[in-house]
């Protein structure tokens, strides 16, 4: 039996695993897209290893949706299609680039090479609107978050922490290491969808000097 639990009186969460894993992310993305066409479901949101469906309790119920989800997970994954591909140009001149090089024992150009060599998957969107958690970062660049988070990280900052990387979509506080900057807008409240990236999308970073 799949692991399904209520998230309040108008949502439920299905747990597919407990690790950061591309296969789980792909499964979560596929379930979310099936859920979006299920009667009574208003929104479906993937986590790393979970999917949450928000529903209209006047149109469906926890029991009905849990049963629908159970039969969905029993089906063979049919849709292996990956998400959209994005290329993000980056000026690798972030304020933490030298420190990242020093702490990883690499030169700054090796840090840039390794970051730009990655083929990343969007695991989930959250923290703030449009913030996409991308993995997996090269293990040679794996550093814990900064001890002292910044009170303001400028929008467009390209950052790393642990085995993940991200672009800050808005000016927000942040504790990741800033290694570069992009001019690409990651979030626009006047666009639909407002976030440039969606869970399951693929991302590459390209060094630029412009």
């Amino acid at each position: 039996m799949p692991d399904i639990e209520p998230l309040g009186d108008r949502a439920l969460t299905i747990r597919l695993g407990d690790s950061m894993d591309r296969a789980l992310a792909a499964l979560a993305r596929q379930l979310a897209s099936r859920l979006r066409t299920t009667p009574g479901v208003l929104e479906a949101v993937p986590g790393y290893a979970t999917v949450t469906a928000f529903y209209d309790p006047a149109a469906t119920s926890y029991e009905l949706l849990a049963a629908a989800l159970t039969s969905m997970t029993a089906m063979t994954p049919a849709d292996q299609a990956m998400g959209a591909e994005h290329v993000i140009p980056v000026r690798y001149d972030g304020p933490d680039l030298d420190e990242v090089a020093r702490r990883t024992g690499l030169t700054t150009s090796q840090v840039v090479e390794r970051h730009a060599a990655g083929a990343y998957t969007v695991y989930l969107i959250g923290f703030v609107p449009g913030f996409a958690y991308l993995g997996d970062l090269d293990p040679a660049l794996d550093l814990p978050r900064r001890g002292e988070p910044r009170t303001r990280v400028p929008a467009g900052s390209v950052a790393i922490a642990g085995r993940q990387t991200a672009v800050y979509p808005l000016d927000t506080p942040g504790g990741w290491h800033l290694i570069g900057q992009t001019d690409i807008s990651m979030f626009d409240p006047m666009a639909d969808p407002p976030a440039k990236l969606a869970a399951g999308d693929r991302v590459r970073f390209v060094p630029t000097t412009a």
Partner: protein
Amino acid sequence: MIEISTAPPFATVQDLGRFGHRASGVPVSGAMDPDSLRLANALVGNAPDAAVIEWALGGGSLIFRRPLQYVVTGAVRAPRPMTARAGDTVVLAPPIHFFGRFIYVAVEGGIDVPLVLGSRSTYLPGAFGGYKGRILRVGDELPVGQSRAASSEPPASTAFDSDAIRVIVGPNRATFSAEHRQQFLSTEFKVAQASDRMGYRLDGPPLAGGEWGARLSEPVCPGAIQITTSGQPIVLMPDAPTVGGYPVIGVVHSADLGRLAQRRPGEAVRFVEISPGPTPAP
């Protein structure tokens, strides 16, 4: 048009919230006490989801540029629709502590700021929605929409006839033992000073005997009760992020979240477990 002539410390434009964009990381926002917003709209003949001013932490005043019906609900003694004439200055008293911490000012026609992602609610951390994405200030001129001729009935209250706040257990059952749930449900917490539109921290004996550290993030929602590393609960509120890494012991029933939101720092909070089914009759 209405103008803010004396601004309270914290007033924003809110409606019932911004739905459909959680997969993009956009929180729902909206009124902290949705029942008071619905009541205010019903009393001036607005649609239930018309935008109003959510007002906290002090008093203030408004100048009406044309004659309009208005009403104040929430932390007030008795909501009563009034009519302002063109040029009137209406002075609004601070929320009455005994009744809560937020008041809702609805005007006939609703506050007609532009829709952003389908809602007029202000989301302060993202600086969008509401009036220019920010807190209202002196001199702000708020557009007012067209009045609807139809009158609407005040909504039936779904409030639970008890002090306790109803909670649906989950979705991290495996993280918490029956003893943890029992301890949580038998504790009387107090709303902490650190409580705002993102979340209410609760003071009380910390939940002991477990590992509550952050783990892989998963979707959360307003009302979700996270247990932080130190064992203290935080109840997520409408501006909370869409995903979170702390385990969630339970989620406040959507009909009760407004009652919790109206509790002031130092006020007591007790939780009672219910099933995720339809709202039981009071």
